[in-house]
């Protein structure tokens, strides 16, 4: 195995905090102009927008026009060589042998005890060439996973490859207006294609984290700004607008997607026993393919499957309109027996419902579920106990998200 890690930041005599300062995304010059509230936080060491103007406004752009979300801080790894497939297939719980070239799969990977380390997507770029993307640094785990696979090279290219997510109903129209409509029109969800662009190659995947029609655009970092400019010019009449972390969090919750540090902890980072989760507990059993004779965590997950999980992540439709953030769940309105807790919650403007993701004792799923909600009105706290209903389907799953060719809104 051969592991290629990014170079350490250079020490500078001019700046004693060099290496500690937040990195700037290749899209930063344009995003900084548009971040009129200077609402920055950080993701994987990058300066990252919480929101640009106002989170709800940006959320409505995702749902009604289109928006861009900077995914440069996402961790990106090239996994190449004759052993690349075998190495990745042993690491993740899904059967990667079924993944065809130019297709992408959503998957997760676990430690030996079946506790989830992270989730992400794997692109099959070519026969022996894959790209893995995920939310948190992963090179150390990839290096450990590659032990014993001689013919595999793993290269981190987070900094070299710029990524921009374009999500929302007018995203296809925007791309068409940019001149790549033909290439993208036949692209199905979880497919990707490559088109020539300003003398380089632009990779477009039909993926995203919003549950809506949308794409992710991948290009060498040095071409990031020409891409941005072309996209914003093409999207001007289609309501293109950058959106930040806050709007993403709303959209992904409506789509029922899990978020690290909300629904799950990365297993290597937890200290308390089983304060991390297995994919089965996260209701991601469909990602775990027990037909595979071997993958990391298989024995532990099989044992858990046979015994049944003690807890399960479910979608809740909660009465009323007060978001059940951080609410504790009980089996009766009297709130005596605790049966779970809410991991994410919001009032969904699109669905017009009070929605949440929650971890609940599997045994309690057959009974009543009540959320104890605290909400504030002009500094004064109020307590409310609201009835919850488990919902199986994602809250937000419009047909346009999967329609191919996509609609031209």
């Amino acid at each position, binding site marked *: 195995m051969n592991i290629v890690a990014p170079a350490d930041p250079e020490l500078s005599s001019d700046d004693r905090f060099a290496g500690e300062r937040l990195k700037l995304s290749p899209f930063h010059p344009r995003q900084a102009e548009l971040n009129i509230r200077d609402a920055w936080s950080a993701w994987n060491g990058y300066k990252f927008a919480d929101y640009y103007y106002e989170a709800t406004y940006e959320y409505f752009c995702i749902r009604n026009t289109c928006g861009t979300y900077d995914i440069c801080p996402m961790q990106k790894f090239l996994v190449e060589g004759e052993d690349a497939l*075998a*190495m990745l297939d*042993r*690491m993740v719980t899904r059967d990667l042998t079924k993944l065809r070239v130019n297709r992408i799969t959503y998957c997760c990977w676990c*430690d*030996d005890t079946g506790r989830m380390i992270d989730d992400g997507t794997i692109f099959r770029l070519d026969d022996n060439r894959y790209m893995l993307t995920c939310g948190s640094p992963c090179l150390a*785990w990839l290096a*450990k*996973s590659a*032990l*014993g*696979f001689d013919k595999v090279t793993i290269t981190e290219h987070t900094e070299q490859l710029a990524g921009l997510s374009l999500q929302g109903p007018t995203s296809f129209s925007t791309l068409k207006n940019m001149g790549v409509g033909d290439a993208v029109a036949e692209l199905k969800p979880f497919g990707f294609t490559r088109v020539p662009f300003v003398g380089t190659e632009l990779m477009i995947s039909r993926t995203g984290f919003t549950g809506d029609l949308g794409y992710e655009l991948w290009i060498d970092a040095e071409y990031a700004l020409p891409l941005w400019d072309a996209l914003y010019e093409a999207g001007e009449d289609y309501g293109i607008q950058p959106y930040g972390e806050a709007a993403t969090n709303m959209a992904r919750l409506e789509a029922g997607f899990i978020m690290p540090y909300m629904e799950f902890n990365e297993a290597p980072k937890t200290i308390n026993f089983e304060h991390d989760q297995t994919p089965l507990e996260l209701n991601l059993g469909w990602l775990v393919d*027990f*037909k*595979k*004779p*071997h993958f*990391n*965590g*298989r*024995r532990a997950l*099989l044992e858990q499957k046979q015994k049944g999980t003690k807890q399960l992540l479910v979608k809740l439709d909660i009465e009323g309109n007060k978001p059940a953030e951080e609410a504790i769940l009980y089996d009766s309105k009297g709130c005596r027996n605790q049966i779970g807790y809410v991991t994410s919650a919001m009032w969904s403007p699109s669905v017009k419902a009070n929605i949440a993701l929650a971890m609940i004792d599997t045994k309690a799923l057959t009974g009543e579920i009540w959320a104890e909600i605290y909400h504030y009105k002009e500094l004064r706290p109020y307590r409310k106990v609201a009835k919850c209903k488990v919902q199986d389907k994602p809250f937000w799953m419009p047909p346009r998200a999967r329609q191919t060719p996509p609609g031209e809104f």
Partner: protein
Amino acid sequence: MKHYDTLVIGAGHNGLVCASYLAKAGQSVLVLEANETVGGLAATREFHPGFSAPIAHTLVGLADTIVKDLDLESHGFKAAAQALPLTAVHPSDAPIQIDGSSVTGVGADDSATYQALQAQLRRFADALAPFWESTMPRIGSTSVADLFTFGKLGLKLRMLGRDDMLEFMRVATLPMRDLADESFDNERLKAALCWDGLLGSKLAPRSPNQAVLTVLNRMAGKHGGQHSIPPNGINGLMNALRTAAEANGAEVRTSTPVQKITVEGDENGQRISGVQLANGEEIKADKVVSSADPKTTLLGLLGAPQLEIDFSNRIRRLRTDGYVAKLHLALSGKPAFQGVANPEGRLLIAPTMDTIEFAYDNAKYGEVPEEAVMEVVIPTLSQNDLAPTGSHVLSAHVMYVPGKIKGGWTDAAKQSLTDQLIAQLEAHAPGIGELVEASELLTPEDLERDYHVSGGHWHHAEPAMDQLLMMRPTYEAAQYNTPIPGLYLCGAGSHPGGDINGNPGRNAAKEMLS
């Protein structure tokens, strides 16, 4: 093609012991040995025409249970009638000699203290004895059997009585140097005490770890921790083990290196299917038990991809640096050591604890020790088939010699160390240089290559607290089974570890049959 119940990889003593127990219980067993002869590091090696020696030149801690269970005496093994003394020699001073619990050549105080210390260590050793022959409990397990083993250990220690129990807790992980310093005045006696705890490990007198436990482990067998050479040699024991295994129905194939352990998998998961030999032949079996070291077995023969990620990386991280080189000299006559009437037994060249410590310091940084420390045996004094009549063999364990040195083990580097060692011997046995007809120096790198053992480590994995007991070689493989169904470990890398005690082989067979 024949389908075996169990294939045993490696015909070292543990492989043969394991095979014997399995065959005795009615299993069809085939033992596969890469080298031409059985015995592994205990096999006799001809290093010069007519001159031979085994790497392991004495026997210590061989489990009596195994000798009885396998009826080794009827298969040609005969224990030495007497144990060998340890003589700490000196170029100018009179030697001191340790024989059992008595020591001569030191002051009356040291002599008395030595007896008392030996008696106390004997009591500790007796309390621990059952645990070398037991499977260690699983960490975190609440099974009755595992809790019982824990309970028994607690009870045994408690039954030592309050004072002994507290003293045991105090000294169990004490650096050998502290135990020696607080007990004795004589420097060479202190060094000798250290030597017997440190031999074969990557530890020095000042290292806090398990050296005292190693002493206690070695005290478990016949002769109570004293080394011995059976009348027909170490090799005689290996041949007896082979004969016993075959008499019990096991087949033994030598010169048959295993290329890989084969695995089959379907929707029910993975399981061992047998082995593939270096010549391409495949042999099927329900189970495979390996007496090779854990790294060789799990990463080399099986392969990390078949294992889980954290587990395989724990095996990768096992500490397996061998620090003992082996010197063989073909001598035209019997050497005379200063002050020693008859050089029988083990002769120790380690004048002070600091000499040992400094040799270790050199080795740590990839250097050859400026002044080596060594244990010398003239095996031809106990066994007459190792050299032509009138000639002798000198066999020495030389510590601390790392497997990797700066610049690498070139022929010149090896010759330079050989010359240095002969010069050191000359100081203790004037004229020995004249007797040398041929020499062989085996560094840990050579032992790794010739005996297929990671790092050339005698004990397959450093016997230290992080790799002992329920952590040997690592958790999830410390009960002789491995995460992959059908694959077992029975070598020195498993509890209770190294030397020629045979317990890993016996304990593994017990687990496989249970």
